């Protein structure tokens, strides 16, 4: 193996995804450590045109498979492509963002290469050139430090674990990467993609999250949560109790059988703080809780709490935030 760092970089709606830029930011630091090039591999319609913009993040070489056939997510087609990219660049590390595509592709690639794979990691270091990787387990109730036995070290990075930094300077080259397989022979063929309208950020990537729980008493009261979220530019989350009750879709669930989030700012409104929920949000940088029960476990965790009725507090909070954003 050589000393390149290879990063799978996803395009969404004409721009490279935040999670991919986080992986490139980590990749740039690792490429410096290994004194090798930072290489991006990307697939999808329009990637060749967008590729030169990756120079801002210190990418020196892009392997791009462009064309409508490369609609992501489609692991069956993309895994062989990544395998080709590995053969071409002999990387010491391959990085992914741990989203839908990365979750499927990282283990697929690792299996093809007969190596280990550390997924959904929050810290990646190479003391003495050997990996020491931190990943939350048991829904964040514990942190495991793991190592991988041989390169290429295949790692996926949890969204929000790294702050995106630009590092322009190096010249960039863009090469076409041919698919390693016949795209007409796939066993799982993507028929259609339904993307939610761009508006609120997606939960795992959001800088601010506003979550509601059973304290809201009825599904229609979530309008209040949505209004606060929109005033803050935040994602909407929910506790397991309200998802199980059918008030909110499962994709909004924060906690052990839902999503784990680590935003800058997390609002827990009418959420008492069951251990399953706490596990999913306790690594948020700052937590604000609103709950009428002063003994609710959420207050043990919250940086700032307001005791009282969410129905009185949240509309005032929303109005104040709007005022603040205007000024």
């Amino acid at each position: 193996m050589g000393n390149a760092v290879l990063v799978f970089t996803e395009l969404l709606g004409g721009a490279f995804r935040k999670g991919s830029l986080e992986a490139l930011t980590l990749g740039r630091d690792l490429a410096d450590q290994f004194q090798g090039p930072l290489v991006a591999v990307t697939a999808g319609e329009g990637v060749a045109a967008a590729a030169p913009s990756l120079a801002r993040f210190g990418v020196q070489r892009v392997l791009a498979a462009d064309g409508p056939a490369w609609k992501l997510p489609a692991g069956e087609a993309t895994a062989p492509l990544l395998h080709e990219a590995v053969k071409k660049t002999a990387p010491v590390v391959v990085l992914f963002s741990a989203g839908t595509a990365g979750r499927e592709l990282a283990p697929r690639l690792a299996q093809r290469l007969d190596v280990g794979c550390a997924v959904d990691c929050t810290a990646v270091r190479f003391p003495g050139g050997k990996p020491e990787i931190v990943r939350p387990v048991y829904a964040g109730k514990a942190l495991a430090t793991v190592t991988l036995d041989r390169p290429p070290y295949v790692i996926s990075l949890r969204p929000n674990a790294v702050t995106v930094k630009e590092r322009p300077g190096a010249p960039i080259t863009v090469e076409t990467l041919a698919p390693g397989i016949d795209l007409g022979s796939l066993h799982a063929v993507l028929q259609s993609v339904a993307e939610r309208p761009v508006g609120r950020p997606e939960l795992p990537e959001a800088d601010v999250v506003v979550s509601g729980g059973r304290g809201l008493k009825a599904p229609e009261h979530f309008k209040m949560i949505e209004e606060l979220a929109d005033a803050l530019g935040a994602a909407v989350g929910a506790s397991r109790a309200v998802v199980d009750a059918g008030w909110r879709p499962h994709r909004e669930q924060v906690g052990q059988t839902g999503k784990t989030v680590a935003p800058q700012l997390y609002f827990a409104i009418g959420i008492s703080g069951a251990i399953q929920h706490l596990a999913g949000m306790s690594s948020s940088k700052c937590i604000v809780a609103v709950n009428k029960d002063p003994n609710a476990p959420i207050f043990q965790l919250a940086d700032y709490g307001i005791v009282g009725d969410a129905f009185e507090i949240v509309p005032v909070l929303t109005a104040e935030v709007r005022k603040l954003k205007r000024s």
Partner: protein
Amino acid sequence: MHIVVLMKRVPTTELRVKIASDGKSLDLAGVEHVVNPYDEFAIEEALRTREKQGGEVTVVCLGPAEAQKELKTCLALGVDRAVLAQDAAPARDSASAAQALAAVLKTIPHDVIFCGKLAVDDQNYQIGPRLAELLGLPVVTAVSKLDLQGDRARARSETDAGSAEYEVRLPAIFTVEKGINEPRYPSLKGIMAAKAKPVTTAPAADAPAHLTQLRLELPPKRTGGKIVGKGPEAVPELLRLLREEARLL
């Protein structure tokens, strides 16, 4: 139709983590184990598939002898037969676990393979994709809707930004998302019937691990706990603290 569902025995989600004295594993004393919650949805989907298409459901578990209890739960729900790939190792990495499961799957017929999209203990999301590579089968991950017609399936996968629909040729692997169905509870009749159903036990195949756990630690404890005030009057002070103390907003 030959329907296979993979099941993992995991600590309950109510778990309060205690670290064992080796500093790198979970202290299992007094820990209750359950069927991995995502696998409950996989089992339900397998049973519904059998109800619509006919055939048999086999549950496969890689785990310790104690997993007999969780396999009995699956049989009580209506699964026809159980296979335990019995493992002496306390925990395997995903590479090793996928190899051991692939070894079992090569010995039993399978038109569809269901499993949860992840196990809630080590949260690896790896078994479905790795098995796809090992067995040369298509996989659709985080499936929230499945429609089987003959040797084809239409599967909806939940993605970061919405969903994606796939047309899939069987045999295939589906890793299921919470909410794909409403899992049933075992009936008394099911519990009685489970006693007579076969559980085949064989030692799990050896396979090398490529990932090693060096340490297991509790996350840094939050100090937190500042009550800003009561009621809507506390809102201006909260916003001042968020701006000036936390330097947010």
